[in-house]
């Protein structure tokens, strides 16, 4: 019903602002009417800690801001406790491991009552609801909740929270850069930028090739200050002796390095790297 794949697709479709589109959960009754309190804003997966860490929006005092995004509709996963039911509403505390938040659900329809009765004390549940912020206290007005039957959903929910947090955080930091460069399509933003290396020789060390290939050994030897400063280069016998390899192996590596343009022959059988210094 609520797979990660669909969430990912939903994410890719939006380039900023609120996050995933609201999804209506299917109740057992086809005549189910969505709660009147729901509005058109997107749905954010959150942890309770994120809710309590959220800062208050500066322009008004109603909305909370998380990762730079106004938060209204949220989805949580956690364990239900302190459940108290009445005819008109049900209240409980949701504990997802990062914190506890009070939740309230009004029972408008028979389907609401059925949903509420399906949740027992201590059960894990998936909630969709609206955050309320009044006199410093944060509560959740629940639109819909159901038992978690596939417990992969618990880990999946936390993964979604991490993903959305990273995305929104990145979106906020990358916005100023858009003034200096062409805007990056959302699908590209997920990939690391391809930056050509300015110095191909550093790659050999970065990739951990140093000391592995004969070419890297020769290059490293020729880069020593004592060798790179010699105008006439280093004789091949001296290189072979120092590296402890045969002349045949050395000359094969030397040929490869000359073909790549990394070293060159100075005078007969003497070689030098093109990097000075």
């Amino acid at each position: 019903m609520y797979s990660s794949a669909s969430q990912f697709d939903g994410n890719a479709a939006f380039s900023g602002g609120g996050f995933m589109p609201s999804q209506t959960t299917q109740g057992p009754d086809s005549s189910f009417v969505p709660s009147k309190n729901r509005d058109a804003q997107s749905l954010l997966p959150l942890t309770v800690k994120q809710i309590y860490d959220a800062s208050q929006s500066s322009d008004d005092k109603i909305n909370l801001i998380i990762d730079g995004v106004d938060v209204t509709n949220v989805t949580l996963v956690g364990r239900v406790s302190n459940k108290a039911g009445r005819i008109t509403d049900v209240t409980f505390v949701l504990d997802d491991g990062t914190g506890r938040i009070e939740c309230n659900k009004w029972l408008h329809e028979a389907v609401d009552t059925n949903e509420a009765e399906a949740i027992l004390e201590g059960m894990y549940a998936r909630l969709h609801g609206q955050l309320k912020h009044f006199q410093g206290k944060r509560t959740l007005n629940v639109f819909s909740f159901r038992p978690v039957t596939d417990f992969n959903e618990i880990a999946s929910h936390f993964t979604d929270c991490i993903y959305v947090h990273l995305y929104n955080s990145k979106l906020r930091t990358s916005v100023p850069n858009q003034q200096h460069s062409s805007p990056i399509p959302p699908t590209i933003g997920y990939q690391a930028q391809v930056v050509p290396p300015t110095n191909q020789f550093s790659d050999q060390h970065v990739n951990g090739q140093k000391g592995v290939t004969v070419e890297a050994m020769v290059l490293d030897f020729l880069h020593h200050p004592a060798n790179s400063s010699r105008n006439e280069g280093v004789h091949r016998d001296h290189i072979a002796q120092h590296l402890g390899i045969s002349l045949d192996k050395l000359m094969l590596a030397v040929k490869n390095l000359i073909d790549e343009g990394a070293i060159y022959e100075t005078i007969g059988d003497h070689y030098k790297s093109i990097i000075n210094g």
Partner: protein
Amino acid sequence: MASAPSRTLTDFFQPASKRLKPTLPASCKSDDANASTLSVDQKLRMEYNKLLAKSKRNLKLCVERVSKSKESGLGGVKLEELLVEETWLEALPGELQKPYALTLSKFVESEISGGDGVIFPPTHLIFNALNSTPFHTVKAVILGQDPYHGPGQAMGLSFSVPEGIKVPSSLVNIFKELHQDLGCSIPTHGNLQKWAVQGVLLLNAVLTVRKHQANSHAKKGWEQFTDVVIKTISQKKEGVVFLLWGNSAREKSRLIDARKHHVLTAAHPSGLSANRGFFGCRHFSRTNQLLEQMGIDPIDWQL
């Protein structure tokens, strides 16, 4: 008569005999001592090999950038990323970011994305002339019009073709004139990279062409870029020899300050006009005479 300069030139680049090779003590590390033990021709050979190595590295860098852009699927590599020779980037600051160059870049990228083998030279060789002849080493400039448009011919150097490719008729005529002028033997291949590494800038006015369509990328912006290259050489250097063959190349003389540089003109070496002003022009020996007068090492034109 012509054989005398030829002998002098070839003697100049003869490899040192083994008996003359200096034996260096292991403890010798003084730069002065090192300098004094190296003969003039050994230094020239060292310099040539070093510049050849740098041009190979530039080529490898271009190949890497092209292949990485293909892997990432971001479309073609940007034109400005293919000019990798630092000395030219310093001599032409911001040139490839100007509006006309960005328009040209988009045009070339869209042409290249039409499929491999549609645009010549191969993407990594578009700026080969500049990447092979650093700005500070330019001694002479041979101006071509646009790249060869047959498969496998173009390599980013004007008039030049890779080894293994049939030598085009224009280049055959160039070799004939070279033989007549300096007594150089006719080479078996048409790769002029050895000239480029020595400081002969082999620049086409237009740097790309569509397959089998001569001059198809003319007036797309390349002329403006290469004109800036020529003007930059004229303004920032002295004593460069410009070899202008054919009317389109001769028109570029307006960009060159003839008080500071030398301009040699002749007919185009193509079959149609070689007999009407190219053969007998003796531009190769004249170039070397001018260079020697200025105290610059002459070009070894023998391939």
